[in-house]
């Protein structure tokens, strides 16, 4: 296969960054959970096992994979020299040794295997997060184009989800529907969790076999991946006609999302967006429900990783990077109705934001068929 435009562009950006940072090579680690740095550097979307790639400033990249089928796949994609390395650490140490007297930045440092970090000085590797992290946050136009396509598929996927959410169906059957849709539309990966029920539901998680019944809230976040870039949509539906309590409760989330989105522009601290969302809850006497007891984050960065920096929290003061993609989602528990979610992926701009999704922000109602 021919290297993609995105890979060629990212490789050039990386070379410039290495030059600027006076680094001779970049060592990146990846697995199916944290695949973003590896994807940026090699364009390989790892699915099984673990990988280490050494990217030279001269443009030569060696990708070590400890799963043979993954190595075959990477070779077929043709972006770099691929080595099947069942003894991954041994192979990486050998590669670094052969690299000679070079300065190597390694990232993500926290996940770099102990078999390498314990001899970091001898191997001449050091934490290289600073080199790559800002590239993962701020997006170029080709990256935003992929995010736009992912957002459009998220919207389409949610229609499939709504159609599937009928009383009597089990939560995992909804996942089956949506995943079949995404695979058939050539989306290789999707992050999603689900909640089904009423006031007893405190959050979303993988399905456990709950059966949808009339009146239930059904929550989900869909996060399809296109060319490595994720976009997320969070929505809540009611099986049947929403009750007044459900509608009134959901109105708080609608107001909070609007407030959060209104606070977004490049340069503002992430905390300002979280505060704008949380102030709405506090105004309705729901301040307890914006704490870590009930909610994890009020949004987060998104890109080659579905949950990247910055986390949108009142104690995170990292500035929002221009042209970064983030999701704003005031998802939390409402004591009157249960756990509700609502969120959209946006691009942060100098004067505000551009929303990538086009889905209505209503509390959806799925008619109960007789």
């Amino acid at each position: 296969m021919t290297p993609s435009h995105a890979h060629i562009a990212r490789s050039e950006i990386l070379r410039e960054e290495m030059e600027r940072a006076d680094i001779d090579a970049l060592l990146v680690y990846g697995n199916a959970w944290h695949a973003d740095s590896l994807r940026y550097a090699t364009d390989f979307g790892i699915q099984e096992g673990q990988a280490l790639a050494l990217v030279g400033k001269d443009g030569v990249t060696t990708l070590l994979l400890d799963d043979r089928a993954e190595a075959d796949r990477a070779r077929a994609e043709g972006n770099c020299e691929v080595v099947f390395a069942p003894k991954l650490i041994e192979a990486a140490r050998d590669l670094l040794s052969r690299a000679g007297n070079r300065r190597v930045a390694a990232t993500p440092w926290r996940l770099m295997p102990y078999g390498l970090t314990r001899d970091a000085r001898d191997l001449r590797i050091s934490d290289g997060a600073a080199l790559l992290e800002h590239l993962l946050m701020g997006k170029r136009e080709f990256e935003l184009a992929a995010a736009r396509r992912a957002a459009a598929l998220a919207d389409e996927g949610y229609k499939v989800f709504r159609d599937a959410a009928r009383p009597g169906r089990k939560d995992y059957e909804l996942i089956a529907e949506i995943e079949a849709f995404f695979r058939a539309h050539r989306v290789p990966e999707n992050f999603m969790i689900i909640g089904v029920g009423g006031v007893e539901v405190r959050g979303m998680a993988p399905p456990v076999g709950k059966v949808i019944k009339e009146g239930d809230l059904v929550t989900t976040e869909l996060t399809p991946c296109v060319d490595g870039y994720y976009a997320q949509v969070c929505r809540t539906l009611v099986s049947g006609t929403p009750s007044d309590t459900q509608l009134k409760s959901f109105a708080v989330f609608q107001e909070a999302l609007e407030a959060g989105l209104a606070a977004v522009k490049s340069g503002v601290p992430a905390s300002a967006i979280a505060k704008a969302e949380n102030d709405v809850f506090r105004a309705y006497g729901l301040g307890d429900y914006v704490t870590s007891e009930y909610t994890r984050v009020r949004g987060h960065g998104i890109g080659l990783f579905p949950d990247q920096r910055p986390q949108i929290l009142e104690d995170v003061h990292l500035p929002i990077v221009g042209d970064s993609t983030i999701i704003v989602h005031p998802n939390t528990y409402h004591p009157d109705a249960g756990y509700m979610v609502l969120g959209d992926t946006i691009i942060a701009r100098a004067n505000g934001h551009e929303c990538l999704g086009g889905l209505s922000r209503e509390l959806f109602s799925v008619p109960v068929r007789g």
Partner: protein
Amino acid sequence: MRRGYYGWDESELPLAALAARRARLQTAMAGARLDGLAFYTNIARPAAVSWLTGFTPYWSEGLLFVGRVGEPEFATALSKRVAEWMRAVTPVGALLTTPKPAEYFAKRLANASGPRRLGVLELDMLPGGQAAEILAVAPDVELVDATDLFRAARLQRDDAELGLFAHGAVIAREALAHIDSSASRDAFALVGAIEKSARDARAEDVQVTLAPDLARDASFMRVDRAEAVGESFAIRASIAYKSTWVRRARSVSTDAALASRFAALEGALDTLIARHDPTRPIGAQLANALHAVPGASLKGWTLEDCRGSYPLEIVAGEEIGDATAGACSILTVHALINGVNWIASRPI
């Protein structure tokens, strides 16, 4: 991430089975003078923790600590709001949510009296950040690689594992049967139908990949990179059922003559799986089995099983040597027939 069905069912994974697995390890620990064993887990390396607890994280990471006596303790960076869900799907041990699982256990070790030797499964693969957290809080703790110790205990397949593996194999077989029942030869629609079938059957995770043109090569691609589907292609389904992984792959051709030869190869492989001698190396038996199919030549093979933190890992093959096929293995065979690739995987 994992997004399929999660659930613990004692009839499939009895508490007694989990206790027996833990007891084997604790006996081995005492013999190796280890004060504890630590197991790191994430979605790429979940298998050891799920073997001991039944739990696989759907996201994020965690660390399981097994002491010389008692139940294990699991600390995970998953958020508090999913603690209730975790308890529902994890039948044993104490559960704790903390952003720094390693630091939590290191504090415990630092406070303990006496020698402190901590065994770690696949120590070299432990994320450096986890190791640093342990050593920052408990600098006198000696980290010892416990991979061989764990494997000796892990390779005893119990009835629970055999049962989960067999059920996963049925899910995989029925999912790939869509290749026969579907009127469509749209490979991407087939991938979707296979995934739906497996998830409807309560698979915890499904990964379906496609070798789009067997006339060219037999590399399995994800759906976004599989271009130009040819008249012969292969589909591979890797399926997790209750944390136990099974793979199955089939080659398909719209050319009638080639389809008939593919069927002959499938027949030979199925016969081998049903009748193989478990006391003799599988590679040699495979070569004999394919020899019976005119025009077929063996290009490569692998045998995978689960013995560490990976759900499946290669334990034998034409590159690394022959071995007997134990229970809960996956045999993958790559052959050439009439110049076209044929590839298949089957659980044993």
